[in-house]
């Protein structure tokens, strides 16, 4: 029996996707609006994209955001991977369950609290707030996400692979970089991507920890919107959506290609045995 999807399924799918994507589609369409008024459609134009290119403030904010995201994601990935290794491999050290609980805590902590506490810390220590404080704040909360992602991969990692590397003469560090890291690399990369996007779209923590001269794009957009939505903002957001979409599609395509190749290889190996 080969029935298509029922009407109920089709309706719920349409409604669901409309909820998710209609606002985004509207935003993209309005970014091409010729008029200044956001609510009135005056015809197609790329005018706001051109104007965006000469808006130094927005471009500067974008540049700060990308720098913060790249730096914080990279450091968070290193620290998060180390934390995951310690939690999975450290054996039963004293206070281990406390530590693993503490790694998860920031995941559920409201951003406002994380932001406020970091602000208090920076004030108490006497750091001048700006680029570095935002970066540090982002490292703090995104490394937990990395740790969780890498930890789940490490749990299923066959420890005898590392032992085999050591047995064959590789000291522990060498064994890690030659064997463990390449195998868990997809999880580490996923952790980096997650940290990068978290940093990219964080508003709350960034606004707590920012200072003069370091305005990130979300902060900029938020403050601009308070003065009225300008089509320029729509254009910025459309570009962001475009970047994210391309990234997601590229990642899933390469995963799919790898999977297909692996299946084909396994089929060939099986066929070779049967012969």
């Amino acid at each position, binding site marked *: 029996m080969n029935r298509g999807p029922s009407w109920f399924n089709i309706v719920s799918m349409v409604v669901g996707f409309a909820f998710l994507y209609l606002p985004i589609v509207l935003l993209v369409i309005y970014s091409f609006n010729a008029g200044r008024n956001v609510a009135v459609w005056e015809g197609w134009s790329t005018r706001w994209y051109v104007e965006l290119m000469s808006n130094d403030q927005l471009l500067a904010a974008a540049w700060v955001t990308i720098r913060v995201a790249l730096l914080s994601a990279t450091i968070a990935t290193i620290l998060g991977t180390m934390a995951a290794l310690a939690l999975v491999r450290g054996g039963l050290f004293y206070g281990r369950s406390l530590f693993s609980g503490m790694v998860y805590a920031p995941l559920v902590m409201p951003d406002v609290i994380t932001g406020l506490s970091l602000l208090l810390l920076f004030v108490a220590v006497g750091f001048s707030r700006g680029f570095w404080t935002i970066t540090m704040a982002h490292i703090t909360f995104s490394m937990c996400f990395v740790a969780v992602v890498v930890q789940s991969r490490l749990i299923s990692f066959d420890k005898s692979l590392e032992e*085999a590397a*050591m047995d064959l003469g590789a000291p522990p560090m060498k064994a890690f970089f030659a064997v463990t890291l*390449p195998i868990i690399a997809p999880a580490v990369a996923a952790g980096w991507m997650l940290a990068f996007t978290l940093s990219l779209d964080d508003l709350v923590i960034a606004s707590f920890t920012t200072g003069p001269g370091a305005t990130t794009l979300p902060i900029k957009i938020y403050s601009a919107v308070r003065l009225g939505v300008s089509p320029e903002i729509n254009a910025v957001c459309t570009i962001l959506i475009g970047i994210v979409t391309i990234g997601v599609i590229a990642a899933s395509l390469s995963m799919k290609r790898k999977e297909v190749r692996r299946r084909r290889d396994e089929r060939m190996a099986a066929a070779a045995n049967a012969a």
Partner: protein
Amino acid sequence: MAKQALGPIRRSFAPWDDPEAKPLIHFRGVTKRYGDFTAVDGIDLPIYEREFHALLGPSGCGKTTLMRMLAGFEEPTEGDVLLDGASLKGVPPYRRPVNMMFQSYALFPHMSVEKNVAFGLKQDGMAKSEIADRVAEMLTLVRLQDFAKRKPHQLSGGQRQRVALARSLAKKPRVLLLDEPLGALDKKLREATQFELTDLQVDLGMTFLIVTHDQEEAMTVADRIAVMDQGVIRQVATPAEIYEQPASRYVADFIGDINILEGRLEKGANGISRLVVPEDGLVVETDQPVESDAQNAWYAIRPEKLRVSLDQPADIAVNTVSGEIWDIAYLGDVSIYHVKLDNGTIMRATTANTTRLVERPISWDDRVWLTWDRNAGVVLTS
């Protein structure tokens, strides 16, 4: 590779009987505890150069822990492991001249077959051309020369097993450790590989230490077997000795099938002693020299040493019992008979089916006699 005749090598090889021989590996009073649990309990075991030694026992008996202490993944709580007379205490796994073939093979999934085999050589800083030569030699040895560029997931189970073997042999270790190496293979392939392993070991002139729970595997490949149970070694001997002269009921029962009768020993004349089973007056005679008189003992006899006959034997002087056929298992090559003796004891007897018979002469409920020779069984005191 020209195949050597195994006979002369294996027949004359018995360094453990030579008091002058120095062991290559020596476990000395090795104990390993995890908290309250004692995994390995004071083991003394010398293993000699060119020996194929098996550690045999059920899972959890400490055999793998013992091997891992030689590989360096575990440190003994007490005692010492010696290699060539030198202590391995504090020597990390990557500095020990032993290599291990893992149960899961532990092939590096992101490396090709040749990269896997070359991994250990690279760690030693061997020259590139030399590595290439050695890898080619190893792959030829395991007949995988056409698979050098494949990744592990592109290979069958048997091929992966051979890559793992080639990788652990590539560095020409002083000792090759094999941790349940054939467990993942099907029966036919496993049996073929067992013979290949013994050939390989003799050809390379290396020392192999295998951990297995499969007694047939241990008996096929090993020069000597150490039977382990709950962290201690119950007996170390050649496969034939383990089977024919088990040291205790545990060993007798663990290796193969056996009938065990409990009774009291009576020392007799002419070197012939008797074991009397109290309740039913069954008397077993043995020519095995026994040390003490009138002590509790067990008589153990293998099922294939019992003769089964439908007719009452003419001379029923010694070691004859009668009973009914309780159950029969026809396995093709042999038949197993469960014989219920008149006192209720069930004894197992196996006979080789040397002729092709459509009708089996012995059937259920038949009255049969079991007879055996005085030297067919062993008297055990523990």
